[in-house]
Structure formats: structure tokens, C-alpha cells
């Protein structure tokens, strides 16, 4: 019996593939295999002999089966290893391309501005791009003969023959939304109005359409000092700096009184804008206390209410913050520009996560 065991274990160890192993299995422990034949011999043995031979044969059978299973697993492992050795890939090949979409800087910056002012209690108001000359001019204390009308390079809409109303205009600023919002909401109120505006001007720093954001806060005792604080807080948050000097310069806008142009302290060292340091001043917006006539036009009693308004260019502050050189390129949709200056879809500006990264 030891010979038998030795013979099959040697054969199993030497088997090179599964077919050989199967042949060995049949020869050893198959129904007609040698072990089976030996089992049959048990019938002719004495009970004493059987008591010795029976367990020994069973043990032999188990041992051969185990050896067969182990060898089978070893062969499979070897076969897998061999196959995997063949399965080599050049993983430096490029992957499948995923398109990378982008958000336009105007949209991104509008969301940044909205996030900052929302924190200060301002909601977002909107108005039509085509508006009446009353909302765009008269209600804002710019009567028909006012030189500001001519200076604004207004686009006028066509008037049909027989329609004698004054022509509508493409709004030259977001200020008409002030009037519409006053009419709709009344005082007190705090709104910003971002959106596209139009002036008939086209050169390397002007495009016939651009974007502004207007701010308006009306309450019982809002002062120009509050305006300055709001703008300081805005500029700090928007440009993501710890401190910034704002300079108010007296100016004139028909719809505010007093009026001020606002400059921020900055430096242009090496052609890069740094806000909050240096000795240069950069004009970024116009502002003032809402003119009583404008409040009246919006249906708000100027004896009881007062407030401030300001307006600035969204495209302009986007250019300043992100170092975008040419305004005209904003509207050209050059794929290279969109990819370079655009923002990822998940770069949603928040105050808790930061406006930019």
C-alpha cells in the first residue's frame, strides 16, 4: 500500500496539466481505479484484516484526493500567473477623454457678488433689458434735454409708423431696476440688480453690451457712512483681502445726491493688480445717496425714507480680480478663452468655502 501511495503522489507531483491530473485521478481513485480495486478486495478479508486494511485504504484515498486538489489549485494559480504575465497594457496610453465644461467669468462673478451681498441682507432684483425711456432716464432724474442722455450713447428701439410714444431704449444702466423694485417692494428694502446693459460704444475698452450690478438700500436712517462701510466690506470680501482703503470722491450722478466716485487703494507692480496696498488709486464704482426725486418716482416718500445706491461693472471687477486683459474677449466665445478663464461647474462661490480657489 505504501508503494501505491508513493506511486500516485509522485505522479501527481509530476503532472503538468489538468488533463494528466484527471488521468491520474481515474487511475487512482476513479470507480475502476487501483484504490477502488483494493477496496473490493476488502470483501475477501477476515474481519481482523479488514479492520486494519479498511481505514488504511480510506486514508490513502483521502491523501490522494487532497494531493489532487492541491495540485489542481497550484496548476490553476500557475496558469493564471502565466496569463496575467501575458496581459500587459501600456498604461501610459491616454484615457478616454471626459469633456470639461466651464462657467463664464460673468456668471461666476455675479454669483460671488450675490453671495457677499446676500450675507448683508440684499436680495436679487431683475428687470427688462428693453425699457421705457421713463424708467431708464426720467424716473432717475435725467430729463429729456439732460446732457447725460446724450453722453450715455443710448441704443433706441425702432418705433413703428404712427406709434408716437418716445422710443424704448436698451437700458444704459441697471438703475431702472431701482425704480421697478421700489414700485414693487416699497421701503424698507435692500436689493442688488445684476445684469446686462448697453451703450453704443465699441473700442478696446468698451463693448456695446456689458454687465453692471446696482445696489440699493432704503431705510429710515441709512447714511453715506453706511454706504462706505458696505462697500468696504464688499471690496474686502470680493478681492479676498484683509483690509482695503476706499476713497470717496465727490462727483455727480443725476440720481444720487450727494454723489461719490469710489477708488480703491492698489498697486500695479509688475503689471499685476494688488488690491489694498501701494500708492495708486483705482476707480471702481459710482455711488451716492438716492435723490429725493428718484425716491418719489419709485413711489417712496423722501420725507420718511432715505438710502444709498451704487453701481459697478461686473465685467470690470472680473477683469481686475482674475487678471483678464480684454473686455471684448468676454463676448467672443473663443474656446481657448472660455477654457482658460472659465470656472469648473463645482466651483460654486460660497462665503463659507471661499469665493475663489
Amino acid at each position: 500500500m505504501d508503494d501505491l501511495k508513493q506511486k500516485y503522489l509522485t505522479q501527481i507531483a509530476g503532472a503538468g496539466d489538468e488533463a494528466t491530473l484527471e488521468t491520474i485521478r481515474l487511475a487512482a481513485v476513479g470507480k475502476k481505479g487501483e484504490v477502488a480495486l483494493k477496496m473490493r478486495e476488502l470483501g475477501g478479508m477476515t474481519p481482523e484484516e479488514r479492520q486494519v486494511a479498511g481505514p488504511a485504504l480510506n486514508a490513502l484515498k483521502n491523501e490522494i484526493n487532497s494531493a489532487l486538489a492541491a495540485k489542481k489549485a497550484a496548476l490553476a494559480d500557475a496558469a493564471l500567473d502565466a496569463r496575467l504575465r501575458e496581459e500587459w497594457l501600456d498604461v501610459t496610453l491616454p484615457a478616454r477623454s471626459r469633456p470639461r465644461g466651464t462657467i463664464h467669468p460673468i456668471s461666476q462673478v455675479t454669483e460671488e457678488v450675490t453671495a457677499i451681498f446676500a450675507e448683508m441682507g440684499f436680495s436679487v432684483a431683475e428687470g427688462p433689458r428693453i425699457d421705457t425711456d421713463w424708467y431708464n432716464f426720467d424716473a432717475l432724474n435725467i430729463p429729456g434735454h439732460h446732457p447725460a442722455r446724450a453722453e450715455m450713447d443710448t441704443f433706441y428701439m425702432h418705433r413703428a409708423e404712427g406709434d408716437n410714444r418716445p422710443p424704448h431704449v436698451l437700458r444704459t444702466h441697471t438703475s431702472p431696476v431701482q425704480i421697478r423694485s421700489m414700485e414693487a417692494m416699497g421701503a424698507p428694502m435692500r436689493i442688488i440688480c445684476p445684469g446686462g446693459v448697453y451703450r453704443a460704444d465699441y473700442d478696446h475698452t468698451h463693448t456695446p453690451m456689458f454687465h453692471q450690478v446696482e445696489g440699493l438700500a432704503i431705510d429710515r436712517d441709512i447714511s453715506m457712512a453706511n454706504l462706505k462701510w458696505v462697500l468696504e466690506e464688499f471690496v474686502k470680501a470680493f478681492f479676498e483681502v484683509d483690509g482695503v482703503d476706499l476713497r470717496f470722491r465727490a462727483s455727480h450722478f443725476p440720481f444720487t445726491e450727494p454723489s461719490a466716485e469710489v477708488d480703491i487703494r492698489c498697486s500695479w507692480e509688475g503689471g499685476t493688480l494688488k488690491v489694498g496696498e501701494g500708492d495708486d488709486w483705482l476707480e471702481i464704482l459710482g455711488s451716492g445717496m438716492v435723490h429725493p426725486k428718484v425716491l418719489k418716482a419709485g413711489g417712496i416718500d423722501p420725507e420718511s425714507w432715505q438710502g444709498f445706491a451704487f453701481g459697478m461693472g461686473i465685467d470690470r471687477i472680473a477683469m481686475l480680480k482674475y487678471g483678464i486683459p480684454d473686455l471684448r474677449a468676454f463676448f467672443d466665445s473663443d474656446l481657448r478663452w472660455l477654457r482658460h478663464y472659465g470656472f469648473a461647474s463645482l466651483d460654486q462661490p460660497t462665503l463659507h468655502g471661499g469665493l475663489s480657489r
Partner: protein
Amino acid sequence: MKFTLSWLKDHLDTTATLDEILYALTDLGLEVEGVEDRGAKLRDFTIGYVKSAEKHPDADRLRVCQVETDEGLKQIICGAPNAREGIVVVVAKPGVYVPGIDTTIGVGKIRGIESFGMMASEREMELSDEHDGIIELPSGEVGQSFVDWLAENDPAKVDPVIEVAITPNRPDALGVRGIARDLAARGLGTLIKRDVEAVEGTFPCPISVTIDRDTLEQCPVFYGRVIRGVKNGPSPAWLQDCLRAIGLRPISFLVDVTNFFTYDRNRPLHVFDADKIAGNALRVHRAKGGETLMGLDEKEYTFDEGMTLISDAGGVESSGGVMGGLASGCTDETTNVFLEAAYFDPIRTAYTGRALKINSDARYRFERGIDPAWTPYGIAQATRMILDHAGGEASEVIVAGKIPATDRAYKLDAARVQSLVGMDIPESEQRQTLTALGFVLEGNMAHVPSWRPDVQGEADLVEEVARVASLTKLEGKPLPRVTDGVPKPILSPMQRREAIARRTCAALGYNECVTYTFIDQASAALFGGGADATKLENPISSDMSHMRPALLPGLLQAAARNQARGFSDLALFEVGPAFHGGEPGDQHTLVSGLLVGRTGPKDVLGSSRAVDVFDVKADAEAVLAALGAPAKVQILRGASAWWHPGRHGKICLGPKKVLGVFGELHPRVLEAMDVKGPAMAFTLWPGEVPMPRKTGATRPALGISDLQAVERDFAFVVDADVEALTLVNAAMGADKALIEDVRVFDEFIGGSLGEGKKSLALTVRMQPVEQTLKDKDIEVVSAKVVENVSKATGAVLRG
């Protein structure tokens, strides 16, 4: 508005430095746009004395001069004919830049003899065109800076020229005196009295003036007088210097006088040649329409009804407040001059100037509003200047009409000033400021000076006080929060939708564009627009003549531009307004996406393929889902003509509720817009997606069955034009409780099925809720599916 520092100092007695003045001007609201410091470029020139001058041994015209300079005796070779011993000269030493010849002086040898500098002519220093010889100064110390010498002896040559931007509300600051007044109010000096006594006439004015009764509103007053026996010609040097410094060309003395007062006092004047006024009478009247005049600018103008004209017996001689006529203007030969000082109404002047497209200094000032009360002083001042320089004899002044009243007063509420501005400005300071600006205070009523037409209410007083007090000093004060605690969200549902649509499109791989909202008529017409209602009256170019009816034409133009640059695989989108009319509110928000070319660049994996309708369908569905649109929609056909008629679908909730359209764009549209197609696109109407009814954030409970779902596949043969969705809906209807989902997984057209037939294969997923499905149950549902689908579409189960 330009003026020189010395001109300002004619009105303002001040010790302030130029920098202090510039700072104050900007701070007061008279924004300094530029300063031309004409002395700066001559800073390094010094004064020298020619001790000796010998002829150059090798050149007849050159002289070898020994010149005393601040650095000792220097040898300078000079070719100027007047270079000689004993003259005081201006020296540029080696290293000095000479602007007139654009050269930096070096040490050089001229014909073998060394020269250590140069003696300069006026032209070489850009002081004048004078170049006959080098400058000989009547005085000056050796080594003294030439600029200092000029400042002392000929200040006009180095006078800084200041340019300020004047806002439309400040006509008074269009005169140097108004600017001086602001500075004086700020405390930078005191105003110098400049007004002269009236000049009595010695004979009656030979020319009469009348204003038509119906014209008194547009020309309420007209002062005039004749000065006879004058000698016109070039102006004195100081006047020429003044005008040249601010960019005006001196013409002749009489004309220069009018220009001087225009800038000195914001008081436009006009001078007629009295001998050319026919009939010795001028009449101010409204134009009937059609009259013509050759203006001083030698252009002919035709007048509309109602414009203000000044005519004599021969016809129109001047357009009041806008421009004088050429025929009656003064020339060098003029000996008798008629001087006009009138007041023309700002509004009328503005309209006339705009209609005639004349941008004259007179129009600019009259339309902003000159000081009517100063009219008699203006004529006196100009008369005095003419008599002093051109001689002659003045007639009595004739006056037609009367000076319009400007007196009005507003209450100064000191507390309100502080409340509005948020600065602590004492009442006494407020009153002092207003007084310095020319207001007259009677109690707390401030009477407005006649030169400030812009002051029309209490708010204007606040502005005056604030700007003189200096807004630079304003300190920010926190704006109280609207409510305590965490701010509430502020975006409206539509505003959120726009942001969500935008970020979903970007997440799907589209690049956001912002294109002009006006496009050319032809492109607008391709997309159902281009009507006159959306036309701009004054477009900047024909490419931007009509408000866009849709976003796609702008995106297609962007695609064409990118294709021309060599970029052919494009995914562009825009979220923005489109316009269906020309009235305010005739706009609606759209979301449009455009795919052109392939899904990506060619790659080793072969994954790149041409974009197709099902790309944009998936993207449209993804955006709509993000906007909260229901999952169950209808896909209908029959969208607008710019879509491929067979390859588009409208995503609808009912036949009239269209949420969006996706599909291939019509090849003719692409061809017209120069886009290499095919191009796939979608347009969504985010406002059409129904607003959710629920109010809370809670979701309904999740119902999951533990029972095994069963899937069965069916292949149907149908006519080729039967739509898959019809089969899906019919299959879904077979058992609404049990059938959870029906998916199309195969389409096969033609082949063995024969012409006009196709096979569609569906997977029907059944999800039991109460008990496990038995074969019998499944057979019953399957039979119902086949029956429903056959009934709805004529389908036959494929064998």
C-alpha cells in the same frame, strides 16, 4: 475743461502748491484728468555766460566758445550766427536730453575740437518755432535753472496746464472763476475781485435788436453794443499764450476775446462785423424751418422750425447759442464790431445742437446753463478789453428782453445733512461753506447764486456741504443687519433655476458663452425673429441690428468663429434672455446647448464618435431633471423650422406645455450661418417647468419590496415610422401596479423584416409587491403586454 495755473491765480489769491490744488480739485468733484507740467522737460537746462567766442580754425560758420556754467568754464562749439562773446545763454550739458531734437547731449569732437555741451534755441526746447539763433537772455545768473528763470520772467512758457472733467451739473466750473470759487470755499485762498465798472457809451447804438414775443422763452435777454474804429489783428502775447495753452488756436483779437470769456467766466459772447449787418437791425426769432446759414466752421446748416435764429434784413446771421455765421463774422479788416451777450435757454440749445450736430463751446455752455445775471458784466468786461487793446469808441448798450429770474431759496436742515452724509459737520461750517460758494443765507433759507442752475432743492445743498467738507474724510459705519441671526436665502426659484441649469450644463461638459443679445437681421430671421419690433434704431453695426429671438444663432456664430480658428469639436451653451417683441418684458429666459463635431478627439480606444441627437437628448433631459421637471414627459414633433424636420423632439407635458426641444439643426440654417455641420442642439424654457407643490423638505417614505423582480424581453415587428415611446407606453399600461419599468434595448430596421418594417426589443421589469410571481402570473402579464402593444401600434411579436 483746461486752464493754466497762472490763469487760475488771476482769480484765486493762494499760496497752495500745485499738488495741493490738484488734490483739492479732485476731492471737490472737479476730477483732474491730467496735468501738463511744461517745465518738467527743461528741468536740466541751466543758464550760462559766453566769456569768449573764437572762429573755429577749420570751419567758417562754427565758433569755439568758452562758456561759464555751474560746473565751471566749458568749451562749446556753436554754429548759431548770434553765438558771440558777452551773451547770457541756455546750456545743455552732456547728459541732458533736448526735446526739440530728441537727442541726449554727449561730449563730442566737431572738426577736431572737443565740445562739452550745447547752447539751445527756443525750438530746441520746444518753447516756440524760433530757430534763427540761440536764446539770448536779458538777465539770469550763471548756473541758475532755466525753468526757474522762465517762471520768474516769462511764466506763461512753463505754466502747468490742468485739465479737469466737469460733470454736467456744474456749468459754473466751465469758467476758471467757478473753479477758483470752489477752491476758495475749500480754504485754498481767496477770490480776487475782477469785475470792471460798466463802460459808458459815448453814442447811441446804431444797430437795434428785437426779440420776437414768441421767442422770449428761448432767448429772454440780449445785450449788445457797437464799438467803432477798432483795429483788429493778432492778440497780445499773453492772450495768445492763454488760448494756446488750453489747446485753442488764436484767430484774431476780437474773436480771441470771445473765446477768452468763454473759458474765463463761462460767458460765451459773439462778435459781428457791424458793417455787414444789413439794415442795422437784428431780430431774434424762431426758425420757420428750412432757413440756411453758412456757419463759422464753413459748413452749411439748415434749420428746423423753432430753432433760435438771429437775422438781419438780409437773412439769418447766427444760430443763437450754437454758432455764428461766416458772412457777418469779424475778420482782420473789421473796424466796427457789434458785441453780443445773450442768454439762450439750455433745453432749446441742447435740442438744436443735437439736431444740427454742432459741438461748439457755446452750445456746450448754454445747454448746461450760463449765469444770466452776469450778462451786463460780461459785456462791460469784454468792452473794456477791446478798448484797451484795439482802441475804438463804445456805443451805449442796448438791451432787448430782460434777465430771467433765477432767485430761489431752499431750507438748509443741518441735522438732515448730518443724517444723510453720516458726518459730523457743525451747522456753522455748513453755513460758511454755502456762503463761500455764493449762496445768501436768510435764516435757514439758502438763496441760490445765479450761476448754479443745478441747485434745485434741499438735497443739492447737502451735496454742496458734503463735497466741500470732503467725502474723503467719511468714515464707514456698519449697516445694521435686517434681522438678527442667520440670513435667509435670497434667490427666487427662477434665479436658482438659472444657476442650476448653468452648472448642470457645465458639469455635462459644455462651455458657457455670453454672446451679444443683438444679432444681424438675417440670422434673427432664421430663428423666427428679425421683425421691426425688435429692431434697434441706431445699431452700432448691421451685425448687431436686432434683438435675438433665441440663443442658438449667437451660439452658432460662436461655433463658426471657433471652427474658423481650427476648433471643430464644440460643446457651447448659454443661459440668458431672448426677445419676442420690443416692449419691456417681451423677453424670456432660455437655456440652449450646442454640440458640433465629435464627442472628443480621436483616441486609441476608438471612443470618439460624431455627436448625435441622443447626446443632446440626454443632456436636455439631465438639465430638465436638475430643474425638477417630472420624469414622465411626452416627446412630440413639429417644433420650429430651424430644426431638422425628422430629427428633433419637443419635450412636453401635454401638447401646449413645451419644456424644451432637442434635435439636429436644419442643414440650411447651418449653411446660412457658415457652420460646418451637422450640429445638435437643445433649447429649454426653465420658466415652463412646473414649480413644485410641496412646501417642506421632507421626502416621501421609501417603499422597497424584498420580493424578486422579474424581467422579460419582447421583440416586436412594427412599421418603421412607429415610435418607440408608443410601444413603451402601451407596455407600461399592461399592468400599472406590477410593471415598474420598460426599456428599449434594441432597434433593427429592414433586412429580413422587409422594406418599411423594423423590430424593437423591450425589456419589461415586473416588481411584485405582495407575493413572489409564479410562471402563470408572468404569462398573464406578458400576454397583456403583447396585446396592448399590438393594439396600440399594430405590432407583431417577432417569432
